[in-house]
């Protein structure tokens, strides 16, 4: 039996009277990469924010890494204790669209700070982990630089290293290349592809259709707060069943 890393059932979320997510259900296996595509305002970012606990859901249930984050009780989402939420928070990582690096810390300290403050690792341990990750990101010469001295692509790779340093079991990406110039997009996507080869479980909200099609195991198309179509990415891109998906894909080909 394969491990289910994400099991979302009937997840719902409203902001005031606006239903942003209506009845979202999907699962993700360990080691798989899921791409979430869809027009802006489709609810994909909100879904990612619920998975990473930056927002709370109103209804449905969600298990991460085989443990419940919230359960469905009479149609309402009832969250686990703060302790359990925190435990799950540490098993998930998030890479933001606009990096959100800490500008007052050096690159090295951006990657070591949480390891030391949260995971209580020693300075040496945290630093050697950070250096290893920087090597992997091809940024070892930037350890003592500050974020303002880096290009967008370098910043995003540092932020991936910062997330990986916490040894997450699932890594989430919120449009990781949307703030980047096209030539910088490639270096970031290359890193994400490398992680996919290492069988890192990942969920990527993206507008990079080539990435979604070529580098993910599953794809999911959202529109208007619902999952319109999901499945094998090749199938989804080459034979879209739903009219809405077809129209969406056409906007990229024009």
């Amino acid at each position, binding site marked *: 039996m394969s491990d289910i890393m994400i099991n979302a059932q009937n997840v719902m979320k409203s902001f005031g009277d606006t239903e942003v997510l209506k009845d979202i259900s999907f699962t993700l296996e360990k080691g798989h990469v899921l791409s979430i595509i869809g027009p802006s305002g489709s609810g994909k970012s909100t879904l990612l924010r619920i998975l*990473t606990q930056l927002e709370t859901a109103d209804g449905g249930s969600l298990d991460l890494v085989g443990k419940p984050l919230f359960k469905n009780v009479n149609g309402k989402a009832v969250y686990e204790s703060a302790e359990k939420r925190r435990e799950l*928070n540490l098993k998930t990582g998030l890479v933001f669209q606009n990096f959100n690096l800490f*500008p007052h810390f050096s690159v090295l300290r951006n990657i070591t*700070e949480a390891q030391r*403050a949260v995971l209580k690792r020693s300075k040496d341990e945290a630093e050697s982990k950070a250096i290893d990750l920087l090597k992997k990101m091809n940024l070892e010469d930037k350890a003592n630089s500050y974020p*303002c001295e880096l290009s967008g692509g370098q910043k995003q790779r540092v932020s991936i290293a910062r997330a990986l340093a916490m040894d997450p079991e699932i890594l989430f990406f919120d449009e990781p290349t949307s703030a980047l110039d096209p030539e910088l997009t490639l270096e970031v996507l290359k890193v994400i592809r490398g992680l996919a080869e290492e069988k890192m479980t990942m969920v990527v909200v993206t507008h990079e259709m080539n990435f979604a099609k070529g580098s993910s195991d599953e794809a999911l198309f959202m529109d208007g707060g619902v999952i319109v179509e999901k499945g094998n990415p090749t199938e989804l891109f080459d034979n879209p069943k739903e009219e809405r998906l077809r129209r969406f894909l056409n906007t990229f080909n024009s």
Partner: protein
Amino acid sequence: MGNLILQLFKGLNFSVRIFFLTLLFSLPFGFVVAKGRMSKIAPVRWFTDLYIQIMRGTPLILQLLFFYFAPFYIFHASYDRFFAVILAYVLNYSAYFAEIYRSGLQSMDKGQYEASQVLGFTKAYTFFHVILPQVFKKILPSVGNEVVTLVKDTSLASTLGIAELFRVAQTSSSRVFSTTPIFIAGVFYFIMNYVVAKFFDIVERKLDYYE
């Protein structure tokens, strides 16, 4: 002349004491006021806002008189003049610092809070290690401005008869029928503020390593 300078230095001593005591209390208390101004509890927010409006909306010289005479008229008791002076300055400057802190806190990108949360930092850790250092850098020029104003505002304590620099200069001036003492006091204020401005310059430059 030597005697005059000695007198002025005695006055300066009072001015410097007012200056440092005001900063000592108003810099931290301003934070409490800023937190009140941003409170989720509406009455706390209204009360803090009213306090700030009064402190910024009325002359400091009037507030000095109020804090000195009010206890007498209300409770038929009075306290030390110097205490009244410090109280008035601290309450007045806290209101200004509070607004500076608030602008700094509210200008922080919410992504910094979100990144901290996702990485597992506690709220307190996030505030002291992520938010505060960045807010400090942002508000430094505005705080510097206020501190320069405070140096000059210490002269208002003369209203309550505190023998600070300006008062001493004024008295000497009328005693010797000359404006020289007042001119020298002016030079003293200028030098103090030159030191203050240089100090803030140095701190700003020290924080220049990031944007």
